């Protein structure tokens, strides 16, 4: 089982030194990614989802940010210990990223062809003509009609959904091992969202790419992911397969999240549930369970100590005093 794990994140910590204090954006996150697996990372805004993935690529803006500890083992090497040159060979080539807002992620001054060909030439060592052919092929796979004509256009001539397709084509053009999709559908309308997710799914299956899908939409992870990490205040509070998380959520936060999604299959006359309160400010957070002020089942111990991570089965963990030895 372990030999097809391609990315292993161990106790990753990314801190930001701000004037107000130390912001622990990611505080001890661990997970494994297997070949071809789709992993969802869910959480509220500011829970550290995006920073986790920037840290994996060592793209944390520094200063003010720095990686305070942990390992990111990709194909046997720790990315965090690599020199910049080595990381640049991985970025875009072995691990690539799709960003949230396709409107701003393409350089408005360069043709699509220039931007795609550059990446392919840089990483794959193809000549320009071959790279262009490859780029056209990828655009076609990503569902861009008439790619041989569209490729010579500028980003402003594409709609939002089309640009996200271009981004996906670009990200997958070097056939990476891992695709990190950071809220790839947030900026798109609902019908396009479904198409884009379908596209990511289909292409990753075809190319055998593992996907890390960052989102705050539970609906998206339910349909897409094999396994799910739920993040809260910079830590993973619950981890498991999609089935386990949705059918049997353990952590009160996960339970709250799932309860607060409107269901079409259940007629209800009640108001939609919402978790009371606001996510905590993670600057100078004390060593307690960060969720206890909002938790319906909070106990005294929650206020004094962060819970130990309880192993409930294979790859199934939860960080809550209700489980494991603290129970």
């Amino acid at each position, binding site marked *: 089982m372990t030999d097809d794990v391609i990315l292993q994140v161990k106790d990753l910590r990314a801190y930001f030194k701000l004037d107000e204090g130390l912001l622990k954006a990611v505080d001890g996150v661990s997970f494994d990614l297997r070949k071809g697996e789709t992993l969802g990372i869910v959480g509220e805004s500011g829970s550290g989802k995006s920073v986790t993935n920037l840290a994996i690529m060592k793209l944390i803006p520094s200063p003010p940010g720095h990686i305070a500890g942990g390992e990111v083992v990709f194909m046997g090497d720790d990315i965090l210990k690599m020199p910049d040159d080595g990381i640049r060979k991985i970025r*875009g080539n072995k691990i690539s990223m799709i960003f949230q807002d396709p409107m701003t992620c393409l350089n*408005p001054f360069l043709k699509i062809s220039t931007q795609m060909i550059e990446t392919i030439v840089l990483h794959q060592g193809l000549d320009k003509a071959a790279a262009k052919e490859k780029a056209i092929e990828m655009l076609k796979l990503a569902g861009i009609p*008439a790619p041989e004509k569209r490729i010579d256009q500028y980003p402003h001539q594409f709609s939002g959904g089309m640009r996200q397709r271009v981004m996906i084509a670009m990200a997958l053009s070097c056939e990476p091992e891992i695709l990190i999709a950071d809220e790839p559908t947030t900026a798109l309308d609902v019908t396009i969202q479904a198409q884009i997710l379908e596209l990511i799914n289909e292409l990753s299956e075809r190319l055998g790419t593992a996907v890390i899908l960052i989102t705050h939409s539970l609906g998206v992870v339910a349909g897409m992911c094999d396994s799910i990490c739920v993040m809260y205040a910079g830590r993973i509070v619950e981890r498991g397969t999609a089935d386990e998380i949705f059918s049997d959520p353990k952590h009160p936060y996960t339970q709250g999240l799932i309860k607060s999604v409107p269901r079409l299959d259940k007629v209800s006359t009640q108001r939609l549930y919402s978790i009371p309160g606001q996510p905590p400010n993670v600057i100078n957070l004390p060593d307690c369970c960060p969720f206890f002020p909002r938790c319906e089942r909070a106990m005294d111990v929650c206020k004094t100590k962060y819970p130990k991570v309880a192993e409930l089965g294979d790859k199934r963990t939860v960080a809550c005093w209700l489980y494991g030895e603290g129970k």
Partner: protein
Amino acid sequence: MPLNDKNNDRATNEFNQYVKPVSLWADAWKRLRRNKMAVLGMWIVGIYMVVTFGAALLPFKSYTEQEMLHINLPPSFKPAGVVALGRLEERKADLEEAIVKSGRPDLKQDLERIENEIVQLKGEIDTDPKHKRVYILGTDYLGRDMLARTIYGGQISIMIGLIGTLTAAMIGIVLGSLGGYLGGWIDNLIGRFVDLMYSLPYMLVVIIIMSMLPTGSNSIFVLYIAIAMISWLTISRVVRGQIISLKNSEFVEAARSMGAGSGRIIFRHLLPNSLGIIIIYSTLQFPSFIMNESFLSFLGLGVSAPRASWGTLVSEGVQGMQLYPWRLLVPAVAMTVFLFAMNFLGDGLRDALDPQSKNRN
């Protein structure tokens, strides 16, 4: 439904008609062409460039040749000999009248000299080809053709504008993008140096630099250096600001996630995106270089004789402006028209390259 299903593909194609790629530059060009004043400015600037830099190939008279019989001739389409003779005879008549009225004998010497000149001119007028010349814009106090002097003066003035703008843009871009991209103490150092230079009076610094650098035959070169050393300040600040706002933009982050290095990010992503504003600033700065050079030349710190710039021509013209107004008007009008054209062009470029003014139709 799979996305690249054949039917789906065809259906999408019908809605996605092919649009010809238009680069942002082509788009800006289209908007520039719609601005009539900018187009006019562009034509005028173009004509100035062709005439001044092609002056050696065009049939103009020499700008250094002095002709004592042709001093201070007014603009005329008649041959120089005829104009000069007419003027000498006028003065002879004036003098004769003055002698009769005042009875001053000392004026007789002047009369004699003028009579001699008339005799000399009458003897040469049909044989010497120089008296067949036509000075359509008159001559200056040494009998040099004003047209040729204005054109060659323009050559130097425009060169100063061009070289000053290019040097300022170069230094400004390099230091501005360095400070903006790297940040930290380098940015601080450059920023404080710029502040320091800003706080000194511009003209004073230029004059000090000019007097410090070794002068001599290369005074134009010294002038270039002096002006360029001061004028990169604004551009470097503008570029720095642009780079800082762009370096945090998502497409730069995306490029970095694709494995692009610093060099590629600066030259491929940051600079092209700030090029518009650099061009605008440079075009608008161009006239101010010419103005500065004229000012320095006017103070006698500019180009040395026999070369001339518009500034030195104006300053020479001022000395006789009541008697010989064309000596002032010709270079002054030439310079004003050019500066107007440059400013219109700069304004047009600003409107055309401004990403906010997307008045496409």
